[in-house]
């Protein structure tokens, strides 16, 4: 029978019959928890399995701290310490990515822990970002994750699939984030509810790994389970080099069944921005140009890669951030931080007046680099702008280019071509 990509990945990880709507036992290659939820995972394991083994396979089990790093409140500090002590007891040191490491999902790609066709679970609702390399990542609750630590498997209802094809060359000042917001503008916050999205078309295929991560990272905001992009040579070589492993790369069968198909022509798509209070409240940047802003954040699992900061550096080089704007820069991982340092980008950011933070989730988990006050308007390169998520202010979501150009102007500004 012909299969979609998600059905093929699941088939490789179960002995049950796989079809949309079926509940199956799924073998999990990578089991993880972060500082958010991690302490509850530990609590569940200790409560339910007090006198027996708690970890099916320590090699495949990880903790990744990224939400509030280092902890800036007692609750997080205590939870991180609970997890740290548990990890020291049951795992090898290398399987604990502590507060210095950066965003867990990105670390897993960089370290070759997640590879194409692998199954990965954790307590991060954006773990489905791994669809960017053709892996199945999924965020789950602390009980489900504790069970997975213990047994190496979880159960899952096989989702139906939605096919999204994107063609056309966007305007030269538009980037992967603008394409992503463009899709959200078209399908809305429930457009892929409960579905596995497969992305196709020349516009998607020509995205590099960083751009693919941006697109896959906002499938959660479309209501989707995961957004899968078939790995190209760049992604395959990267993952092979990082993991030293061989892996299957699945394509969907040509006659497989999709519950829905969308085709979008994004020729000359102009830069997009998502206004308060939802990621699908998308407008062309030009429509809101001129709105005064107070802060800018370049960060997150959506836009915290080196390539994102490269664009920002090109725009900021030799210029100053507007005196009424706080500009915050948070690399996704320690590796990205190192690249920024080595290639002189930190110097450019420093000279422009930006604040540079250690790696982590940045503003999304409301804490690492401060929050917004009532009345504050913030442009973020992140993926969520729900009321109260990052403070009492309003957050707008945009590309690194739009965010950087606006930081200089002190108001929302359509980026020039760089």
């Amino acid at each position: 029978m012909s299969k979609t990509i998600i059905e093929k990945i699941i088939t490789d990880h179960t002995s049950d019959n796989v079809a949309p709507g079926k509940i199956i036992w799924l073998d999990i290659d990578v089991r993880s928890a972060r500082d958010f939820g991690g302490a509850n995972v530990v609590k569940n394991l200790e409560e339910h399995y007090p006198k027996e083994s708690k970890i099916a396979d320590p090699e495949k089990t990880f903790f990744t701290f990224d939400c509030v790093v280092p902890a800036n409140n007692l609750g997080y500090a205590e939870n991180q310490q609970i997890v740290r002590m548990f990890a020291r007891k049951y795992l090898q040191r290398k399987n604990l990515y502590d507060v210095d490491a950066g965003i867990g999902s990105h670390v897993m790609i960089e370290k070759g822990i997640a590879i194409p066709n692998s199954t990965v679970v954790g307590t991060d609702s954006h773990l489905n970002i791994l669809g960017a390399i053709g892996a199945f990542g999924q965020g789950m609750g602390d009980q489900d994750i504790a069970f997975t630590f213990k047994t190496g498997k979880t159960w899952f209802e096989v989702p139906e699939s939605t096919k999204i094809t994107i063609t056309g060359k966007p305007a030269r000042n538009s980037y992967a984030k603008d394409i992503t917001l463009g899709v959200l503008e078209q399908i809305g916050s429930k457009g892929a509810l409960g579905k596995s999205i497969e992305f196709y078309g020349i516009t998607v295929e020509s995205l590099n790994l960083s751009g693919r991560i941006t697109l896959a990272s906002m499938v959660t905001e479309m209501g989707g389970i995961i957004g899968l992009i078939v790995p190209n040579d760049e992604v395959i070589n990267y993952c092979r080099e990082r993991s030293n492993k061989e892996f299957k790369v699945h394509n969907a069968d040509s006659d497989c069944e999709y519950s829905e198909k969308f085709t979008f022509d994004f020729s000359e798509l102009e830069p997009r921005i998502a206004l308060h209070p939802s990621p699908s409240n998308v407008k062309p940047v030009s429509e809101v140009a001129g709105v005064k802003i107070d802060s800018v954040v370049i960060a997150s699992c959506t836009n915290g890669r080196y390539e994102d900061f490269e664009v920002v550096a090109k725009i900021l080089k030799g210029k100053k951030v507007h005196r009424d704007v706080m500009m915050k820069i948070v690399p996704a991982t320690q590796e990205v931080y190192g690249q920024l340092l080595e290639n002189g980008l930190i110097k450019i950011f420093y000279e422009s007046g930006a604040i540079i933070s250690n790696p982590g989730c940045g503003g999304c988990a409301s804490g690492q680099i401060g929050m917004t006050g009532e009345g504050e308007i913030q442009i973020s390169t992140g993926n969520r702008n729900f009321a109260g998520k990052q403070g009492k202010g309003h957050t707008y979501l945009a590309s690194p280019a739009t965010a950087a150009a606006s930081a200089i102007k002190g108001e929302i500004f359509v980026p020039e071509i760089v």
Partner: protein
Amino acid sequence: MTKPTVIKGKIIIIKDNEGSGIDDIDTDMIFHNKHLHITKIEEMGKYAFGNLPDWEKFPEIASKGDILVVGKNFGAGSSRQQAVDCFTSLGISLIIGESFGAIYKRNAINSGMLLMTAPNIMNESIKTGDSLKVNLKTGEIINLITNELLATAEPLSNVQIDIYQAGNLFAYGSRIIKS
């Protein structure tokens, strides 16, 4: 000990005054948030449907072993486990619904509560007090009054049977790792 895979029981059908099934019963109607501080399962039963109009007396009419029959999108809303556990508390053996909220379904399966999906069960000629015989593995629902096949539900998956037999997800975890 193996638990039965054929369930017999008296049914309670959740309908409104006009005799139609009630869709979209959310977790606040099932177990209101003012009782969320309760953590002992034994104490949860008396609040079941406490916020569902005309069904506030449900805990008094429900008996151990009863089968609950509900409409579409049952258990929509929050992730509270109490909305499942309050029925466990009353001894409800099985919930047959036209469809379930996704989180509710996950919570029910993890706690070993039996759920079955039968898309048109509300249209069948059954009433509260009738008795049914339900085969979990084939999905066959037989009306014990007439001895006729009433409907065929989606059979339970291996996952549901495994967790149900063990008691709950964590008990299942112990069982498979030891064996």
